[in-house]
């Protein structure tokens, strides 16, 4: 066995990350649907045989929840002796393990070396098929418990057929699943090569030391924080089903090198699709801690296991069956907001003000008469990011738990019977402050005559509750969803489901801005004037900065 020096540790960690990265490249390139190829709604992880995460190549932080719970689920459901070389497990279910909402299909492949289980390679892709929402998880689509899709390299065809039958865009699903399968095969081969190079004993020793390294980095960073208890509470506007002002609450308890997040006091689970299962909550906490205390901590279980999380069962942050979970990511955005809020009490310089706090999206589906086929177009839209203690917030970006890119307007118009009328910044949406909050986005879509039976699902948050500022910084502007027919707004809510649209209807989604930081009166005159000249702050809002024209 080779001695595990800091050099071998770093080099091997790099090699594993390299494998995860290459798998990510493979999935992006071989993926079939727009959502996977263009929007990169996918992630990849490599785990130890005991289910500990070693390396993560992620594009979307919330995905970690599915990767993690799928591997955990496999190990819970199968004895090691029943896991064979050539097996592939598939899952999507938040309650039986393997997901945080149903569109994310996760594929797990055990890796064997010299007949010993040495790792799991795992990847997840968001399958943007017809989205369904309803009062329970049973209304949201096919639930796939962790099952073997392949056993000893043989496709379990019954399972495969059963799954495919439940999807509308079959070609996409076949193509994406195949890409996921190829990606894991590739990862398996590379992990075996690594074991070949290191020898099994050194590999196992590395895994252990690598996790300890993650733990060490996390504990070092945690112990720099002052001991104490820090609370914060914020509210979601609504769940779209009549529940409004839904509280999310956290108490962060720091003692020495230990940190605990307690979510007692958060709302009970709701009828709308906004419930997070435990793994989604954990993914949010892990994201937040990494961003807040040391963004160089390697994403591995050594780091994760040094964090304690308490959340009462049956709440919106730790839901139990049959709560619907489709749009859990929006809730996870608010969870990140409250964690950041609690940390602002430790030191506001460590955090940023509240951002757009939502995964604002619309999903148009219908029948495309140009090609006589059904279509689904899903888009998530970024918004403002919070101001920082030393500079303005970012305009028009995805925040916290998501970072998906948009679909280019020209690609969209080529593919779907829709026209984009606007894609622009929302003026005045950044909260005033010594440093201004980021601006939200307006994306406006017109339904063309080639779209038949068009229905819309859309949602945004922070329509009522503004994104908060810090240290006397003002709040950012709220979000809006407007469905306009013949010049008149025809919707009331900011969340709509199965809304029938007609030719010529216009759907305008304006996402929230973000909070400012510091007293706006202290903002330098040249910055205020520059924002004014840029039209990011209009005449009406100059008064926030103590100016008049």
């Amino acid at each position, binding site marked *: 066995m080779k001695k595990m020096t800091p050099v071998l540790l770093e080099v091997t960690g790099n090699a594993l990350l390299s494998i995860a990265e290459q798998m990510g490249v493979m999935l992006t390139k071989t993926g079939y*649907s727009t959502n996977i190829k263009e929007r990169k709604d996918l992630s990849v992880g490599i785990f130890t045989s005991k289910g500990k995460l070693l390396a993560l190549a992620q594009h979307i932080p919330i995905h970690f929840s599915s990767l993690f719970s799928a591997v955990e689920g496999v190990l819970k459901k199968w004895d090691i002796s029943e896991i064979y070389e050539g097996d592939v497990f598939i899952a999507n279910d938040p309650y039986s393990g393997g997901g945080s909402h149903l569109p994310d299909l996760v594929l797990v492949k055990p890796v064997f070396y010299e007949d010993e289980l040495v790792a799991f390679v795992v990847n997840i892709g968001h399958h943007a098929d017809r989205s369904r929402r309803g009062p329970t998880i049973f209304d949201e689509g096919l639930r796939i418990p962790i099952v073997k899709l392949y056993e000893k390299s043989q496709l379990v065809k019954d399972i495969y057929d059963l799954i495919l039958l439940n999807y509308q865009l079959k070609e996409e699903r076949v193509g994406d699943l195949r890409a996921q399968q190829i990606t894991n095969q590739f990862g398996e081969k590379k992990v075996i090569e690594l074991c070949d190079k290191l020898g099994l004993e050194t590999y196992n020793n590395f895994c252990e030391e690598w996790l300890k390294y993650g733990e060490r980095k996390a504990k070092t960073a945690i112990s720099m924080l002052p001991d104490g208890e820090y609370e914060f509470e914020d509210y979601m506007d609504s769940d779209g089903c009549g529940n409004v002002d839904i509280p999310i609450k956290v108490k962060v308890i720091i003692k020495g090198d230990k940190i605990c997040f307690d979510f007692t006091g958060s709302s009970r689970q709701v009828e709308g699709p906004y419930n997070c299962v435990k793994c989604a909550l954990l993914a949010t906490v892990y994201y937040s801690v990494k961003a807040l205390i040391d963004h160089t901590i390697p994403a591995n279980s050594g780091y994760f296991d040094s964090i304690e999380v308490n959340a009462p069962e049956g709440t919106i942050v730790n839901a139990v069956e049959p709560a619907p979970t489709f749009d859990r990511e929006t809730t996870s955005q608010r969870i990140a907001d409250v964690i950041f809020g609690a940390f602002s009490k430790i030191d506001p310089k460590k955090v940023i003000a509240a951002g757009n706090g939502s995964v604002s999206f619309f999903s148009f589906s219908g029948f495309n008469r140009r090609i006589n086929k059904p279509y689904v177009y899903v888009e998530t839209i970024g918004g403002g990011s919070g101001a920082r203690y030393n500079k303005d917030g970012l305009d028009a*970006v995805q925040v916290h738990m998501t970072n998906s890119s948009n679909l280019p307007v020209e690609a969209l118009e080529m593919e779907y019977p829709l026209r984009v009328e606007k894609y622009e910044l929302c003026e005045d949406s950044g909260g005033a402050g010594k440093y201004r909050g980021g601006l939200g986005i307006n994306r406006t879509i017109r339904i063309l005559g080639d779209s038949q039976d068009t229905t819309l699902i859309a949602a945004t948050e922070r329509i009522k509750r503004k994104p908060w500022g810090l240290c006397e910084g003002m709040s950012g502007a709220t979000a809006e969803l407007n469905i306009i027919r013949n010049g008149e707004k025809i919707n009331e809510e900011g969340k709509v489901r199965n809304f029938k649209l007609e030719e010529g209807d216009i759907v305008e989604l304006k996402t929230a801005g973000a909070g400012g930081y510091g007293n706006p009166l202290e903002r330098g005159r040249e910055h205020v004037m520059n924002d004014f000249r840029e039209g990011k702050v209009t005449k009406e809002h100059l008064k926030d900065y103590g100016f008049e024209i």
Partner: protein
Amino acid sequence: MDDDKNIRLGIDVGGTNTDICAINEKTGKLMTYKLPSSNNDQSVAVLDGIREIVESNDLPYSSVSRFIHGTTAATNAILEMRGGKTALITTEGFRDLLEIGRQKRPDLYDLQIDKKPVLIPRYLRFEVSERIDYVGNVVSELKEEELERLANYLNNIGVNALAIVFLNSFVNPIHENMAKRVIGKLCPEIFISISSEVSNQFREYERMCGTAINSFVGTEVQRYLEHLESAVNDVGISKVYINHSNGGIMSVHEASNFPVKTALSGPAAGVIGTHFVTELIGVSNAITIDIGGTSTDISLIVDGELISSKDREISGYPVRIPSLDITTIGAGGGSIAWVDSGGALKVGPQSAGAEPGPACYGKGGRNAAITDARVVLGHLNQKELLAGRLPIDADKSFEAVKIIGDKLNMELYETARGIITVGNSNIVREVKKVTVEKGYNPEDFDMVAFGGAGPLHAAELMRELNIRKAIIPRTPGLLAAYGLLTEDVRKDFVRTNVINIDKTDFKSIYEIFNELKSQAEDWFDFEKIPSSRRVVRLFLDMRYLGQNYEIEVEYDEDSIKNNEDLINAFNTKYKKIYLYCYDDPIQIINFNLTAVGTINKPNIVKGKISGEDASKAVIGERKVSTDNNGFEKYKLYDRDKLEPGNVVVGPAIIEQMDSTTIILSGQSGKVDEYYNIAIENDI
């Protein structure tokens, strides 16, 4: 070609040095010169360099047949955000597209990171009411009065450059052309570029960004190039060419209109140089690795051809303009070693750069860089480098490495080796990513290592990557200037035209190519390229219907005669990259034509093969620390004394003015008839 004009001159301007290579096209005699770059006005060093090489070699200026220039004028203007006062005109509702981009934040976790600054401020971004749909129909007419009003306003506020980008202009550029005409007439002083000319492809953000960059740097680059051309003409050199990002050269006229095409040309010339070398010696698959002080550029040669990409970034801004596919990472001789809070050894991406440089430069640098680790181990000369022009203070290297070792509780030499191993692992990780992206396995490639530091790393990297052979070119530190001498005149024509193959008559595909061909002929005529030297190659960017990544397939007119041939060609290529293919319908997205005006390659004279014995070149030996904490004696060679046919048996160190090559124990390096060294593992 005039008989007395037989000197070809290549000048490559880099951040630190301006490198010059001149070759006598008949005798193959190579002349080189290096001088510090003049960063305020690149032309000062360029003109000094021309004078120096011409006069010191006793050449009349009139003997220069062509002068080929690799310039970073546009690149630097973007890096330093030095541009003209630039405005944008776009479709109503989309002026913020330049700022929103793909709406991604640059890093998932780093809360302090910022987006790249927007090249054109919002108050200079204007919208006009016009709209063209996805098939090119005009949905809403562009009005001349609106343009005239804007033109007057632009004049009033003193704008000196303008980018015009309308949605779907790649299908129908009518509104962009009209806007250029109307505004150009009223604003003759303004540098105008339109997206359908700069980058005629779909995906509006990338097209807008490329067009904005083109205008942003346009006035400055135009001024520089025109000034340089006239200064060079004045001394009697009439043919001036500019290197572009896709591994070819273009006229000053073309470069002045499309300066963005030079933005990624810096590393391209070096890759062209390696390509020339690999062609000479018959290597068809190679990974080229160019390691300098702060960065490493990686690219591939596959089946004897360089790979182009339309998906590149310059300083974080996307530019969808055909360019050699080169990946850059922050790893080089100056990369700094450090210990993180968890006790791991990290190297880079921070670099000591040229100032203060590694600790051993004695210019105040205290951090241990990779170069310092090499000094400690004995890989590098512990007294001087660059033929004595760079004194080395080895004690400073020992001090700096020891500080790292103490933190890790590791012995000095072990630390130094660790720094190199970790630094190499960063490069290895990137090489793997680059090759897998293209669907290849690095083990199937040879390596060409160049740049000042490439030859130091080659032997180690080939072991890590399981590569059989690494080639060290004759002038690893001057390969870019050398590459310029070998380039053809080249222009790439691209047109997005979305076609579903199963619903299209083959003839219409052919016709689109015919239109592109006639554009290419016009260009050949304009550039006065004789018909015997005109070469045209055709490519299609294709994908399965519903996908969003295209792959490039060569459209060989002799073998592709119908739709089925085309489908087969696509599936074969797809399968090569992704291991499988589908039965799905296939779309053509882009039609590409590469027009090349070939230029005679310089005549490279072969050396006479002498025996394997390289002992004549031995100039000493050096103790080098090795894995078992012992020392091994490395023989030290002078590269200039090595003869073709010589075999240098490892362990050995080969010094030359612009680089140092290491050959490890168990490897040997054979000098070929062109004076390249091929390092191979002994069997």
